[in-house]
């Protein structure tokens, strides 16, 4: 085993949170090493193809998925530098004030140890740094915050048509808030609306892609990003503080010493790493005195609604995210028999193939019937999707599987079930979605089986060290120089896409770490 020189900070995972923290801490002069198990990517690797984009999705150790409603892991997880943010769609709504206080306001789920007000300035700072397009005034549901630095993205015919349905039912919509340039911003060009965002945007228009600026900026300040380096365990000294990590590179075990360790893997691999870092002193895993590591795993329940129209929808134009958003009915207890927030994302650019392609939307069609449908859909398809909130449940979890990887470390297993509230919300959204399509003028509409999107929880933050893994800065309750970053910290999921909140939290954590460096570091 080789031990390389000491770093100030080692970050596990080069997704959005890890990359942002690397940038922030390197800017302050700290020596930062980021280790990621996947490959290195560059902009030239980002081929515009729904087939090629699969390279950007999870390709690491097998993750077992089970439970009544298994979580769709590989589609949602990233692989390599940039993590899931490399292929994310750039939809950046904020969480709402209610999302932070679910337990105290509704007697369900969990509370965050902070409120929206604690994150507002970080949302504002990040939207300026990354570059967000949108229309804050049109988002009547949006909590307080600065206006977006760029005007809204363009919309096309599909959005105009589907908006008719929302208008007819009295549901308000707004241009989608997106980490995508609508105009030139910070020297980066505007979007050209070709709908290849999830294949990775190589033209630097999607600021939420860490390759666009975060990773280059961090490297410019001396941070080192090391791909193909799988961290096996976090190392601790005799006092129980983190003092480095053990990892595999080129099939050789190596260790690196560090004064502070940040685990920014993802809500599956972060618990796996903590649990696999068990020692004789901590047989239940590192930072797990609360026995909550891996618990409260959450996803967004996803409902896709398609409609066919007798007009040219220009549905190939736009962005992968959506053209419009509606959080008009976000309030969690607004609907009888259901509980949880939801949002509509309306009129994304569509492609023929892949998981979100329109061929899969009608998987009952084959042969000539399929071909006829494909030709009609290429012109007349309308598409929108709803994301529904999932209440945090202790039994939805990431745990260690019996199977081990080639290095002797247990695999992760995700156990997941949607509760009756989520299922009722799904039924409600299918009915509402079809009603919107009908009101917009669709000649027919349909909804494939529900799916899952995003991952959150598993290492939730909280005030009580007996009931949570970390505090609001991501500092683990048990180990003062071990931090967690990313959506694994979320105690509730809300119904908003998570990346903006991941960014705001990581920004806040970076401030805290720098302000308290001498007290935190080994």
């Amino acid at each position, binding site marked *: 085993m080789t031990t390389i020189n000491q770093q100030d900070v080692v970050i596990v995972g080069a997704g959005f949170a890890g990359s942002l923290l690397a940038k922030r801490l390197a800017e302050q002069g700290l020596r930062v090493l980021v280790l990621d198990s996947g*490959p290195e990517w*560059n*902009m*030239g*690797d*980002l*081929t*515009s*193809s*729904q*087939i090629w984009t*699969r390279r950007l*999705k*999870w*390709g690491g150790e*097998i*993750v077992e*998925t089970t439970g009544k409603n*298994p979580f*769709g892991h*590989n*589609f949602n997880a990233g*692989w390599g530098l940039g993590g899931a943010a490399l292929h994310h769609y750039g939809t950046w709504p904020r969480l709402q004030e209610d999302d932070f206080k679910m337990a105290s306001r509704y007697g369900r789920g969990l509370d965050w140890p902070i409120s929206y007000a604690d994150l507002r300035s970080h949302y504002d700072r990040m939207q300026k740094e990354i570059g967000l397009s949108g229309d804050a005034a049109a988002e009547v549901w949006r909590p307080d915050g600065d206006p977006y630095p760029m005007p809204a993205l363009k919309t096309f015919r599909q959005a105009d048509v589907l908006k008719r349905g929302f208008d007819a039912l009295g549901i308000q919509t707004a241009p989608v808030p997106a980490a995508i340039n609508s105009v030139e911003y*910070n*020297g*980066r060009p505007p979007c*050209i609306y*070709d*709908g*290849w965002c999830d294949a990775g*945007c*190589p033209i630097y228009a999607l600021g939420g892609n860490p*390759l*666009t*600026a975060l*990773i*280059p*900026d961090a*490297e*410019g*300040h001396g941070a080192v990003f090391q791909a193909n380096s799988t961290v096996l365990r976090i190392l601790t000294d005799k006092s129980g503080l983190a003092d480095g990590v053990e990892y595999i590179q080129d099939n050789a075990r190596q260790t690196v010493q560090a004064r502070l360790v940040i685990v920014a893997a993802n809500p599956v691999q972060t618990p796996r790493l903590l649990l696999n870092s068990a020692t004789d002193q901590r047989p239940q895993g590192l930072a797990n005195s609360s026995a909550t590591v891996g618990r409260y795993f959450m996803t967004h329940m996803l409902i896709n609604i398609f409609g066919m129209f007798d007009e040219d929808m220009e549905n*190939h134009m736009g962005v992968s995210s959506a053209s419009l958003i509606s959080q008009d009915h976000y309030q969690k207890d607004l609907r009888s028999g259901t509980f949880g927030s939801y949002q509509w994302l309306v009129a994304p650019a569509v*492609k*023929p*193939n*892949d*998981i979100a*392609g329109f*061929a*899969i939307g009608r*998987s*009952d069609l*084959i*042969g*000539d019937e*399929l*071909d006829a449908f*494909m*030709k009609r859909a*290429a012109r007349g398809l309308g598409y929108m999707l709803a994301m529904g909130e999932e209440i945090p449940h202790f039994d939805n979890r990431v745990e260690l599987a019996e199977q081990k990887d080639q290095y002797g470390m247990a695999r992760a297993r995700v156990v997941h079930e949607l509760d009756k509230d989520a299922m009722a919300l799904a039924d409600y959204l299918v009915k509402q979605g079809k009603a919107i399509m009908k009101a917009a003028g669709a000649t027919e509409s349909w909804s494939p089986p529900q799916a899952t999107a995003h991952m959150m929880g598993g290492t939730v933050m909280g005030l009580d060290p007996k009931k949570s893994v970390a505090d609001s800065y991501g500092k683990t309750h048990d180990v003062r120089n071990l931090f967690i970053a990313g959506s694994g910290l979320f105690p509730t999921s809300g119904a908003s896409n998570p990346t903006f909140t991941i960014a705001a939290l990581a920004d806040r954590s970076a401030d805290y770490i720098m302000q308290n460096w001498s007290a935190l570091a080994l």
Partner: protein
Amino acid sequence: MHISDRMMRATLSRRRLLEASSAFLIAASVGGIDQMLWPHEARAKNVPVDPFSEAEALLIEKFGSVLVTDAAESGLVHFLAAQLNRPHADSLLILRYLDVPPPYLDFYRSGLKALNDAVQSVHKKSFASLDQRQAVEFVKAMMSANPVGWSSPVPAPLFYFVVRADAVDVVYGTMKGFEKLNIPYMGHIDPTEAW
């Protein structure tokens, strides 16, 4: 925005892209001449389809063509073979998204065997021997449940879903497929060949 070595390297990545795309090329000796062929060319020249047997390849073509018109001509079997010869972390198969554990060849081989077993139990002949009407009826029956005689741990509806998605990839998910649907491709970085 800092201009780092990474951004400079982006242009060099184009070379890596070209190298990676060669993974789709199939080395073949045709008429005594060594050639690198694209999957649809390999299919036209009857190049072997390792790791599939000849019988498995024929079954994939027949099954895939019932699911999606022109799947065989578009090189479905060679596309699958090329991907199955790669490490799963480099795979471009949709199976990667569905949390099916590798090796992926086991999935296809098991499903193909079950398909033929089930057809044999019902029709007393192979799937490839079914006429179009029989094949379509059989496929429609396996969309939602395992047909009688299905012998694989891979559920028939999942096998159907995956192979149909593979066939959609090669027929409609390519630049040629977009053209067929009259959809402007508008790639930032176009795939270098068929896929």
